[in-house]
């Protein structure tokens, strides 16, 4: 029997971190992540982990410390949110370019300005091109499960890349839910012992990290990074299956909900998928053939799985919780739409922005989005590609 506890998302990730027992954690406080790091600090203080916990004066330093520790050969974790992530920006690229398998929990929070501490996805979406793997979580359980899987994925020799495991700020990070946890031993065996590759601490084999790389080789190195992240998809799938065997909770790149015979679907990230399930159940009761595609893995973008899942549909509502100012639609919309360009059949796609700065989204909003999508398909013409949910105009 699995052990069941009441955890909020922060506690769930802190507990996963305890079971992972990383060599180094370096972090700086920022709402709504602080609670996670403080809980982990308690585990350190109680001697329940062997981790070195480094408190720093900024997130830039936090990520720098993580990079140093990972290059030295350690298993390294951190956590942040919003402007903390933004302040790490240049270091995010260093971590990915050096192929350092750091795992970072991000409680998604809106970016300033103006200052807002609540959930949207502007922070991690802004970091989507830095070369990290991005795994989104629908609830505290998934935040816990994703964190454990992230270690195994990041450290896989075919991957060796940093991973962000995200959870919606406050909505997941601060809401207590039922979470099934594994035994410490099970986690330990699942992730295995860590062996750093090319560690700086291997004094017999000195190595150099990050020397100058100009027009002569930079481009080839980026090419190899492109290949590296693209190659992660099968590893993420494999680890998801293995985790399923261990826990009974299977993980794939994407998750469909009532999609099999659906004509219309919403595509969403994070906690909104839970809200969408309600909307779909209620529309199904009214006889509508609707479903949900939850994007768990956003980077690398699982293009083929998206085509397979969405191409048979008539219409799709893509829900974006962040804006790409001046772009044609939000980040999720542009990816999904682009993936479907050479699909065997192309459904109509509408983009709905919602929930910026923590604005609540309700099942009725999602029902409305699906209904609007159906209307557009029936009318045979998209007048408006971009729409909004829950906004005063």
């Amino acid at each position, binding site marked *: 029997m699995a052990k069941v506890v009441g955890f909020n998302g922060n506690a769930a990730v802190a507990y996963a971190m305890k079971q992972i027992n990383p060599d180094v954690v370096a972090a700086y*406080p*920022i*709402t709504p992540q*602080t609670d996670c*790091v*403080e809980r982990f*600090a*308690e585990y*350190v*203080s109680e001697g329940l982990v062997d981790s070195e*916990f480094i*408190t720093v*004066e*900024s997130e830039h330093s936090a990520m720098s410390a993580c990079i140093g520790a990972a290059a030295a050969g350690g298993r390294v974790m951190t956590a942040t949110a919003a*402007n903390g992530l933004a302040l790490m920006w240049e270091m995010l690229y260093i971590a990915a370019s050096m192929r350092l398998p750091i795992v970072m929990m991000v409680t998604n929070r809106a970016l*300033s*300005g*103006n*200052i807002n501490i609540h959930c949207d996805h502007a922070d991690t979406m802004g970091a989507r091109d830095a070369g990290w793997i991005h795994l989104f979580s629908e609830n505290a359980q998934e935040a816990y499960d994703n964190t454990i899987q992230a270690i195994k994925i990041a450290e896989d020799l075919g991957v060796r890349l940093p991973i962000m495991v995200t959870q919606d700020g406050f909505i997941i990070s601060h809401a207590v839910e039922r979470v099934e946890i594994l035994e410490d031993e099970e986690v330990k065996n699942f992730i295995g012992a860590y062996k750093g590759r090319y560690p700086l601490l291997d004094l017999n084999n000195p190595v150099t990290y990050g020397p100058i790389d100009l027009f002569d080789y930079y481009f080839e190195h980026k090419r190899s990074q492109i290949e590296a992240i693209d190659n992660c998809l099968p590893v993420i799938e494999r680890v998801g299956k293995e985790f399923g065997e261990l826990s009974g909770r299977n993980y794939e790149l994407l998750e469909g909900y009532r999609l099999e015979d659906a004509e219309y679907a919403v595509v969403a990230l994070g906690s909104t998928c839970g809200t969408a399930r309600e909307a779909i159940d209620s529309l199904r009761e009214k006889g509508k053939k609707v479903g949900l595609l939850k994007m768990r893995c956003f980077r690398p973008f699982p293009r083929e799985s998206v085509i397979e899942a969405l191409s048979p549909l008539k219409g799709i509502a893509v829900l974006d919780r962040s804006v790409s100012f001046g772009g044609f639609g939000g980040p999720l919309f542009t990816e999904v739409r682009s993936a479907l360009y050479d699909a065997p059949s192309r459904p109509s796609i509408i983009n709905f922005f919602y929930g910026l700065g923590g604005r609540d989204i309700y099942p009725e909003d999602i029902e409305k989005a699906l209904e609007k999508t159906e209307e557009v398909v029936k009318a045979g013409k998209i007048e408006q590609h971009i729409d909004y949910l829950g906004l005063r105009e």
Partner: protein
Amino acid sequence: MGNLFDSQVEIAWCPGCGNFGILRALKGALTELGFSPEEVVLVSGIGQAAKLPHYIAANVFNGLHGRSIPVALAVKTVNPRLLVIAESGDGCMYGEGGNHFLHALRRNPDITVIVHNNQVYGLTKGQASPTSEEGFVSKAQPWGNLSLPLNPLSLAISQDASFVARGFSGDVDKLKEIIKEALTWRGFSLIDVLQPCVTFNRVNTFAWYKERVYYLDDSYQPEDRIKALEKSLEWGDKIPLGVIYQHQRPTFQDKIYSQIEEEDLIYRGVNFDDLFSRGLRLFT
């Protein structure tokens, strides 16, 4: 009694917080010096201290955690006729924004930096800040802070900062006088204000400070840099308050304007008739 600088915003500090004293002292200083709200710009970062500008009716620029000083410097440079105050916490000014602080010391902009030093990160609920005592226990460091506290006054004096003072939020009248001196000082002025955080700092409480603080008397000469440095190192059983160091030197604006030989940047190439017709008011 009502004050010209009263704001309608509801205050979100804990009852008994040391920030209230700083707010009262600052409002008093601005009033007694005869400023009007339109002439004053408060620039802040993020934190409990950084909320203060919301509670004063004046111009406010609220940006990012740690980043108030460069904004304040630029505001003052573009419009030297404004009174510019950067206001934030010890974490914001000395930690996340520490680099800006260092370089402001070098540049000597004519701004006043008021640091609410509660020796803790208040807003994020009580982690050790750059001024927390070694061994300070917090939820993020249950084993106690491993670093030594930064001494902002010594740092500022060592870099020949123009005006360096320490105040105590538990003594509003005297703090007000120090703030008045800083606001009328030409050049960079730093006031590090000892501000008890009644919720998260159970070490450096009102009582703790009251037992230790004392004011420099008239015989003290703040122009002597070496003496000032010595004074700034005094901490523990006795903590000096007042103006610890002052030294006039050319300001950032003096140097910029001598280079560009122009009137204030704000007047450059502006069509005032147009602006006035759209409601602009000028303060000279």
